[in-house]
């Protein structure tokens, strides 16, 4: 059905830092915005080593579960300083951090989906990005009813999609391979 064949993915390579980070990238919402939370974590490889040359990107709904985008006909309410998109390279300790507002529940095929953030990871040694989702630990009832979480049958694997709490927000560690490997999605 596709008329035009798509362009293949290639790795970001080891020098992504010269091209991709933005000074304001980690701020999906402006600093100082009431209710803003940090999502912090590490990226580790199959040997458990910290990955210091990855890039983490996040995309999410606003606190009302809406998107400022033509394909969300409900439109978005105004949240000043909220961009919904975050981008942060990992540092020398394999750590990233994104400041954002917690998203609301998002309409899904069979009722609402639990609040979630889509997360992409790019790095040298990855010929294509990997995609995962972050869910929130305090949303136990909504998480239990979420169809995407339910599609991951192994409870131990499913648990990799739920963030932990932290003093200033949430903790979401990403394991690319091996023990505690994060669930990644075919999107």
């Amino acid at each position, binding site marked *: 059905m596709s008329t035009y064949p798509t362009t*293949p993915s290639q790795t970001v390579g080891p020098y992504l830092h010269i091209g*991709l980070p933005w000074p304001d990238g980690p701020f999906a919402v402006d600093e100082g915005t009431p209710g803003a939370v940090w999502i912090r974590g590490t990226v580790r490889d199959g040997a458990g080593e910290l990955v210091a040359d990855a890039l983490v990107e996040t995309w999410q709904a606003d606190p009302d579960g809406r998107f400022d985008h033509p394909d969300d006909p409900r439109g978005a309410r105004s949240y000043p300083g909220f961009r919904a998109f975050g981008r942060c390279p990992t540092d020398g300790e394999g750590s990233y951090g994104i400041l954002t507002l917690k998203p609301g529940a998002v309409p899904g095929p069979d009722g609402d*989906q639990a609040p979630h953030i889509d997360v992409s990871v790019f790095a040298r*040694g990855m*010929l294509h990005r990997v995609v995962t989702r972050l869910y929130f630990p305090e949303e136990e009832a909504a998480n239990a009813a979420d169809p995407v979480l339910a599609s991951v049958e192994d409870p131990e694997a499913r648990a990799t999609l739920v963030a932990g709490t932290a003093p200033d927000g949430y903790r979401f560690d990403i394991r690319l*391979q091996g023990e505690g490997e994060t669930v990644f999605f*075919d999107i």
Partner: protein
Amino acid sequence: MPTTPEARTGSGLYVPQYVRDHDTHPPLDYPGYNSTALRHPKRPLTLLPHTLTEVTSPVLGHERVGELDHDLTRQHEGGEPQGQRITVHGQVRDSDGRPVPHTLVEVWQANAAGRYRHTGDNWPAPLDPYFTGVGRAMTDAEGFYRFVTVRPGAYPWKNHQNAWRPAHIHFSLFGQAFTQRLVTQMYFPDDPLFFQDPMWNSVPEEARERMVARFDYGSTEPEWALAYRWDIVLRGRGQTPFESEEEIAEDDE
């Protein structure tokens, strides 16, 4: 095969479903590229149906792009970079043929000698004080983008004995949906280094040529710059723009 072209939320919102194009892309586990060994998931990927989160993406405005960001030869006071001046231009479309307008295109590359301005790149080729190697542009209303730069050099790396990367420019695109996000590399025609490059070889053979720009004599600027054209195709929704609902219904019969 493309999935169903249409889905709705429980509350009736239309959610387009983007085609799945696995046969285009390299695998995450590719032994020829050593660094994939510890960086690919071992568990099979879980299918994620496209919901509102996946069919939307940031609407990034022109505020992200400075006046000279598309011109990598004019980013330094006092001089121009060494090398062959070129323009790289093309159209961004989706697989249905629709232009992708007003989307951010980011590029980064090595200089003409094949060296990146990056602390991790130490091979003995010269840095160029007049070249950073980073560019940004927005596509226009018809999906066209254009950069001015110098042709990057090839460079060695340590993946295998006498390994060299073919000359390339890194591209990053957002498209209009999370599903369309693409990071890739543009190559130059007839590069003699393709045969030994695992990045090139990791892509299914029939898809490799889609990463190669073509020399575009018609767009060459006399007494100024050579030109290359590279069109980029992002995932579409599996419907041609002129396909009416009646035609779809007929297809289903």
